[in-house]
């Protein structure tokens, strides 16, 4: 339980998807023009991470990694399917995004309207795939490592933390950009350039958290 809590806090502040690994940068830069839409995208990313990461975790530990298929019988005990992981992870993500989209549309039209166009785009958001690949790396770590994911609870905590960290980053940037509309920026830096510098400064601020011992 303690370990899960520390993973949760670490993944928001220390291992922030945007500021430490630059994952999901494309949509991060494109959709952060105002706070309202960025909140929508943040929620959608958190939601999809929360669903796909546990599924991919099961896939990794029960099917893909070396010896994971032992539950099928003796003959499968030393099979190593890890070279299939890219294809399977992305297929799972694309399929679940499609499924989530249909379920949300059926049962909660209001949520569907607010997430709208973002849901299908999330399949190709690197934060989701990145989460799955980092999970694959972290499953192999020693259980005493602060980054290790040892059971389902850890994975859920990691998924929730990463999603919230991403959301925190995009909402923060959107708020800054809304204010920046009124500033006098040098012409070649307008738009994209100044946004990069803003993100750079925000990342620098987030560096302070890296000394955090949890």
């Amino acid at each position, binding site marked *: 339980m303690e370990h899960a809590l520390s993973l949760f806090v670490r993944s928001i502040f220390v291992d922030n998807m945007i500021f430490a690994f630059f994952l999901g940068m*494309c949509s991060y830069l494109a959709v952060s023009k105002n706070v309202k839409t960025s909140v929508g995208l943040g929620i959608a990313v958190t939601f999809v991470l929360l669903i796909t990461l546990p599924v991919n975790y099961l896939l990794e530990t029960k099917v893909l990694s070396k010896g994971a298929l032992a539950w099928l019988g003796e003959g499968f005990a030393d099979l190593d399917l890890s070279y299939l992981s890219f294809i399977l992870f992305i297929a799972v993500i694309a399929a679940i995004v499609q499924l989530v989209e249909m379920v949300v549309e059926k049962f909660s039209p209001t949520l569907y309207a607010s997430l709208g166009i973002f849901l299908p785009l999330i399949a190709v958001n690197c934060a989701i795939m990145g989460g799955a690949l980092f999970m694959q790396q972290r499953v192999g770590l020693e259980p005493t490592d602060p980054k290790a994911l040892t059971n389902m609870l850890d994975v859920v905590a990691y998924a929730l933390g990463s999603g919230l960290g991403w959301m925190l980053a995009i909402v923060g940037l959107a708020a800054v950009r809304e204010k920046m509309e009124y500033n006098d920026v040098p012409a*070649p830096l307008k738009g994209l350039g100044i946004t990069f510098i803003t993100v750079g400064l925000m*990342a620098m601020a987030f560096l302070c958290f890296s000394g955090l011992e949890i």
Partner: protein
Amino acid sequence: MKSDKFKETLLGPLNKNNPVVVQVLGICSALAVTVQLKPALVMGLSVTIIVALANVIISLLRNTIPNSVRIIVQLVVVAAVVTVVSEILKAFAYDVSVQLSVYIGLIITNCILMGRLEAFAMSNKPLDSLLDGLGNGIGYAWILIVVAFFRELLGSGKLFGFQIIPESFYEAGYVNNGLMMMPSMALILVACIIWVHRYINKDLQEK
């Protein structure tokens, strides 16, 4: 006439239509692998090969893919090509593939790929698509190499792992800029590239 068009498809992405600084695609990996020149070079090369191959494959299939499932088909094709490249890297350049860690897998969701497949390969002939893929890959690679050059030179005084800044400089009180190794400086360096690029190409400036 025809060769003009080929030239435009191949060379346009290097400057006026650069995937990173103009189309804003593939930023994630561009920033993350640029601490040193070697991984940046390998990454640029891998992406170039993957975009070109995936572009050709999708372009050959473009008339047979039903519109409603095209994203999944594209993702599967890309994932297959990326898996091959990743296995080759593991076999022949193991230490670089460890350094690149998850970012090789993330080429699958690299927006350059999906962007080029959607915008170009789905509606153009294989040869054009090959040139477009090569052009965009190289356009992406040169940004990576410029960023990595400055980060490695200023951050650790090396290029490709060889010491460039002489020992006497350090004795005279020169210190490596540790901040260059941090993620935030990559963003600011890209911003500087955008600044110079848009200063030269005035028509790209945003209002």
